[in-house]
């Protein structure tokens, strides 16, 4: 059986599909968050050898940091698809991802600062991983600013897509400054993201929270892309028909 994927690249068919998917992702977010936090708070030791109870910040810090990079990558993929296939929906998806990505980046920085204050005694340090994560935040904000600064939506899409693609160089920089290939050359501030040494219950809770964050991102991005579709396709007949029926 072959599925015609391009069928869903039309905003008119994607809009109702997205609407059907949102509640599923919302429920999955709720279930996974409850499960992950229950496991993270009640099935894990309170005190690890060096790190005390604040280590539970990783249940949101790691998922947020991970999402901040992945969402940027996905945003760039949609932007590229937009430039190559010239499909409107691709640009709309890219635009819908940016605010969620920016929020994930901010959460990663914020929770990282709280972690840093307890374990290293400083809220902020101009260390490569923090600086590059901050640059990622500026990239998201810059992408959104550029998009809203250009009146013609098609030009805005193309210009901001280019900015996003150029900014992609930032993602591997963050990744390798966190997962330093040669530890002797990096400050030992941040733990590598290896899973080997982690206590298994902590690892389980963290991975469940990663999935929870993903489901949240899917839900909120699909909700936002529906708004963008309505806004941009407002002259289409199907939107006018929908306005009469839908609440």
């Amino acid at each position, binding site marked *: 059986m072959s599925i015609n994927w391009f069928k869903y690249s039309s905003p008119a068919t994607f809009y109702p599909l997205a609407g059907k998917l949102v509640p599923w992702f919302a429920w999955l977010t709720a279930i996974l968050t409850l499960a992950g936090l229950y496991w993270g708070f009640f099935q894990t030791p309170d005190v690890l050898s060096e790190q005390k109870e604040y280590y539970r*910040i990783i249940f949101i810090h790691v998922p947020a940091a991970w999402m901040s990079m992945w969402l940027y990558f996905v945003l760039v993929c949609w932007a590229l698809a937009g430039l190559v296939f010239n499909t409107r929906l691709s640009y709309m998806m890219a635009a819908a991802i940016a605010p969620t990505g920016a929020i994930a980046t*901010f959460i990663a920085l*914020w929770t990282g600062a709280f972690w840093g204050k307890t374990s290293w005694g400083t809220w902020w340090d101009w260390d490569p991983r923090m600086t590059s994560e901050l640059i990622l935040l500026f990239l998201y904000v810059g992408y959104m600013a550029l998009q809203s600064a250009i009146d013609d939506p098609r030009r805005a899409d193309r210009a901001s897509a280019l900015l996003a693609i150029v900014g992609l160089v930032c993602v591997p920089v963050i990744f390798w400054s966190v997962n330093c290939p040669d530890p002797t050359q990096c400050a030992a501030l941040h733990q590598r993201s290896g899973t080997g040494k982690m206590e298994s219950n902590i690892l389980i809770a963290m991975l469940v929270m990663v999935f929870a964050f993903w489901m949240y991102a899917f839900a909120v991005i699909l909700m936002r892309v529906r708004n963008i579709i309505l806004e941009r396709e407002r002259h289409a007949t199907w939107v006018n028909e929908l306005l009469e029926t839908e609440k």
Partner: protein
Amino acid sequence: MTVSEFFHAGGYGFYLWGSFGMTLLLMAGEVIAVKNQRRTILKRLRRMMRLNAAEVDE
């Protein structure tokens, strides 16, 4: 473990709940903002539609 012990988190409550609190605030805020945006768009588009219909009637 009592409730107050839980929130005290061995003296790290400020850092732990400062992190979780901000995350909850931003995510809940994002969902509310997107829902509000939808209401605003629908309202504006419906008004535009009524205005257009009125023009056609004249």
